[in-house]
């Protein structure tokens, strides 16, 4: 007796949905997790807890895949990442081990819908600056030697930068960790906010450093999900490999497309899905 035909079809559906999720997550700049959870729940009817378990593991794959490239380009500020990972890892434990077991399916759908909608704001309104000026190291940043420099390929020069607002940033990172642990997403938007608004780090460094931190945050949350029995290998394996492939394809596509308009189109589609999740969680039929 072999594997049922329907089981193979099921796997292919999961893989196709995840591939699309990976492409959209990469092109919109939101990352895989925040797209893959709605795709699996809304389009495949999967329970949200299972979708979150699959998502948190695939976030590790995309973050690590992109991370190995960014780090080589010296855009990642390793010291900032290592220091703030204390906050995100602690938050991830609180989110995954303390809060997630308390939340039912409806509550998760509502919190997810709201988070998805808020995450779309930076796509329409520019926050932070490409190259902040007049920033001086604060005391903690000086003591921890968080200032650094990178070579900007587009401007063709070395950019030196200093860093401020460490305590505020640590607070935002703790919150980002909680969201990661609770919803199974990288919460990259919150991390970028901490880097650009609180710490005033140049945006290229902010993106690379956030991505680098997401792997550790997600691995911490995933450890809890593995032990809670919320990781289903038959689902997670096709999801994680397809999201990774999708993210790779998305990155290649972005090299040929002008990005602002495309991102906004995808963001509108995601806004519809976010509203759908929110209403579903509230028990209002659409």
């Amino acid at each position, binding site marked *: *007796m*072999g*594997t*049922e035909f*329907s*089981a*193979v079809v*099921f*796997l292919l559906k999961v893989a196709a949905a995840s591939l699309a999720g990976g492409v959209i997550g990469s092109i919109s700049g939101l990352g895989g997790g925040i797209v893959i959870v709605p795709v699996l729940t809304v389009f495949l009817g*999967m329970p949200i807890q*299972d979708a979150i378990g699959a998502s948190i*593991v695939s976030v*590790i*794959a995309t*973050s*690590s*895949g992109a*991370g*190995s*490239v960014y*780090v*080589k380009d*010296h855009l*990642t500020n*390793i*010291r900032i990442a*290592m*220091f703030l*990972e*204390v906050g995100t*890892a602690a938050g*991830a*434990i609180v989110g*995954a*081990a303390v809060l997630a077991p308390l939340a039912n399916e409806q509550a998760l759908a509502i919190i997810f819908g709201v988070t998805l909608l808020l995450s779309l704001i930076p796509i329409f309104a520019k926050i932070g600056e490409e190259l902040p000026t007049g920033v001086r190291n604060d005391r903690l940043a000086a003591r921890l030697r968080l200032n650094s420099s990178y070579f900007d390929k587009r401007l063709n020069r070395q950019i030196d930068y200093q860093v401020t607002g460490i305590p505020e940033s640590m607070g935002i990172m703790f919150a980002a960790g909680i969201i990661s642990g609770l919803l199974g997403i990288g919460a990259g938007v919150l991390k970028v906010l901490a880097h650009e608004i609180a710490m005033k780090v140049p945006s290229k460094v902010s993106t690379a450093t956030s991505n*680098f931190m997401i*792997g*550790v945050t997600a*691995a*911490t*949350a*995933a*450890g*809890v999900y*593995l*032990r*809670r*029995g*919320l*990781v*289903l*290998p*038959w*689902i*997670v*394996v*096709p999801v*994680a*490999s397809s999201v*990774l492939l999708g993210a790779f394809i998305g990155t290649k596509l972005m090299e040929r497309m002008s990005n602002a308009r495309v991102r906004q189109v995808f963001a509108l589609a995601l806004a519809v899905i976010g509203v759908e999740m929110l209403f579903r969680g509230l028990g209002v039929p659409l």
Partner: protein
Amino acid sequence: MSRADPEAPTQPQPRHQMVSIETASSWVLRVGVIASVVVMMTGLVLGLARGSVTVSEMEHREFSGHPSSLWHGVTSGSGFAVMEVGLLILVLTPIVRVGTAMLLFAFEDHDWVYTAVTALVLTMTLAALLLLR
């Protein structure tokens, strides 16, 4: 002075040490992701080919992850156990990256502040994987 200059002083500088952490991190992340995907896909194909899997099993069979049952599963050719190993490699990848950075901060840089910071992060991630539920 050019980087290829053989007369260049080889005094350790913080910037150079960071580069070695960057190189090590990049390497750990790449090897970890590639290895986990290869192992996971092997397990998936093996499981489909050798087992009689149903949709219901796919939707409900959890990661068990007990070391002795994993070892028994892998040696008896269970695709499911191989997928579990692949998942463990993936989850361990960022954790190994933190551990590697901790060792480099300690033994290359003698930077005890960052050794302590990375040790704290490592403790939390390992606690999540081994203790919490």
